[in-house]
């Protein structure tokens, strides 16, 4: 009986003391979801394809970072940039193998080939690195943390937030201001007209996959550095990124960012105030609700 009454008081108690911490947790998780969601949404935009291997690009880059940084003992910067480069190349390879040969066929086919690619990439990771969780920390088993506005954060959490916001701004700039960004937007708007106007839509699709791979890679490495890596890490992350993309309106770029942050905040606030056992179900529930009531998403057009 005694511990029951404490349970009732718990939400009030946390509200004051820990709200900032929980909001930071949500923003940091959310920024990673946003990066993944951007990939889903852009690839859907130009290719009308849900890339089911997207979570595996996230996982693959984290393992490349592990290979470079821990196993080959490179320094952290070259490992990081090497791994995101590989993430982008994986994206291109995925487009060549699992999308381009089937782009004229039914939409179901590339969906299935990307599921195949996803299983294949997981199997490769298991083959080379084993199934057990690996830490990406080289010199210690945990990171030093610092206090910021009443929340306790680790440096890599800070980098996750900053670099994802930076990347999103950069992406927006590229899409708005460059010729290439225009080509992507034109392809997304109308693939056939774009190709009539002389845009190489295959090239555009390929580079969109590369950008998606790169963004997922950054998220994978940073989250992996913070939370260890496993061959199955891409499944849940991919699902949540997908939910974020649908929430924001699939194909809509600012929507993906907003969706990512919404999911991150919703699941962390939900874990704190409702039930932590259902933390992961919160994004499932959100996905169901959007599909039921507003399938076009927050910013999506009809």
């Amino acid at each position, binding site marked *: 009986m005694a511990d029951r009454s404490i349970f009732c008081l718990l939400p009030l108690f946390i509200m004051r003391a820990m709200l900032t911490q929980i909001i930071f947790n949500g923003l940091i*998780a959310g920024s990673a979801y946003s990066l993944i969601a951007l990939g889903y949404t852009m690839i859907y935009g130009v290719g009308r394809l849900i890339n089911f291997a997207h979570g595996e690009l996230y996982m693959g880059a984290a393992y490349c970072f592990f290979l470079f940084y821990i196993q080959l003992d490179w320094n952290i910067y070259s490992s990081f940039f090497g791994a995101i480069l590989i993430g982008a190349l994986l994206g291109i390879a995925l487009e060549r193998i699992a999308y381009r040969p089937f782009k004229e066929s039914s939409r179901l086919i590339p969906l299935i080939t990307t599921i195949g690619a996803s299983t294949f990439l997981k199997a490769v990771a298991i083959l080379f690195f084993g*199934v057990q969780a690996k830490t990406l920390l080289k010199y210690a088993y945990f990171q030093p943390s610092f206090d910021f506005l009443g929340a306790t954060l680790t440096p890599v959490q800070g980098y996750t937030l900053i670099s994802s916001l930076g990347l999103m701004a950069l992406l927006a700039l590229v899409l708005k201001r460059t010729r290439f960004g225009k080509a992507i937007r034109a392809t997304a708007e109308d693939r056939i007209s774009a190709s009539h106007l002389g845009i190489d839509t295959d090239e555009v699709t390929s580079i969109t996959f590369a950008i998606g791979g790169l963004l997922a890679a950054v998220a994978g490495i940073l989250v992996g550095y913070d939370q260890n890596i496993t061959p199955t890490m891409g499944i849940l992350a991919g699902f949540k990124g997908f939910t974020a993309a649908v929430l924001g309106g699939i194909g809509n770029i600012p929507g993906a960012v907003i969706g990512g942050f919404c999911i991150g905040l919703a699941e962390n606030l939900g874990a704190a105030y409702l039930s932590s056992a259902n933390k*992961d179900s919160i994004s499932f529930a959100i996905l169901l609700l959007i599909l039921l009531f507003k399938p076009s998403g927050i910013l999506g057009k009809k």
Partner: protein
Amino acid sequence: MRNPLSKSSLYFAFLVLFIFSFIVLPQCSKKFEVVKIGFIGPLTGPAASYGIAQRNGIMLAAEEINGGDGVSGKKIDVVFEDSQMDPNKAISAIKKLIDIDKVTAVIGETTTAGTLAIAETANRTKTVLLSPSASGAKITEAGDFVFRISPSDSFQAIMASKFVYEMGLKKGAVVFTNDDWGGGLQKEFQSNFNKLGGTILAAEGCTPGTKDFRTQLVKIKSLRPDFIYIPLHPDESAIFLRQIKELKVPGQIVGADNFSEKAILKAAGAAAEGVIFTMPTEPSGEVYKNFSNKYKAKFNEEPSYNSAAGYDSLNILVDAIKRSGFSGEKIKNALYEKKDYKGASGIIGFDQNGDVITKTFEIIQIKNGHYIPYKRP
């Protein structure tokens, strides 16, 4: 019409023959000389370190048996199935093992949730199911054909709660994996700890495979418990321990047999320092030494409790088959008769529920990266 068969249908016929040869030929040649035993356990996923240790132990046992006289003159062949710690996959695996591979008996599942999920199929098909490590209290009532060689969780939860209380830690929190194993331990621990007079301030569940515990930890930190009890799977425990340090949450960490795999030390390292946990009593004696030397020679690493349990599972099944024959009913009865099998993981004897009654738990502390039997200061 010189050629009634067109080229493509000829190719097709060859293809069909080719595929069928894979299905038919192995059965023709092996059916009469091989005893098939199935294994179901997580070889990938968050509890993979258990499954792999058990698989290694089983492989070693099979090698020894086949190097000797085999089973009543037949060679043994173990079919390994990966459940990925997913009870649904475990169910497909046992159906495959029984219907397609026609196994004589099944070793598995590694986890409590998986074993409970497949117990029904085992009982219905009268196939002996022997789990090397499932420890949940519910397994006791899982049916006549279900055996296990690890002691029940109710022992370790009672032992841990009593021990923690006697250390003078009166206010605690629990973070548990929300499955049959973690939830079972949480319930047993909490009710015993309350009975003793202690208080559990919060019990936070998480889905299997969780990697971000920060929000749960923030909640717990604000309640200032004396200790945190963590029935979490190995990969989850490793990241949990790290986040405890990063968020500077004070309090003694108390674990369960999730620490029985030393792989956890590789991933958590210094963050695991000082953890106290319960695990099945470390085996010793001649049989263990013999096993341990062979294991080190084959796999180039120290064996764990789980590898010893895997090794014993196959050996004890083969022992029962040798004494009784190949039908599930007979093997089951032969296992119930066994009261003092000297295995690498300890003495194994079953009670009328198929629970092992000859093994106990002990309290271990991690000090300087080693497992030391805990002594009160």
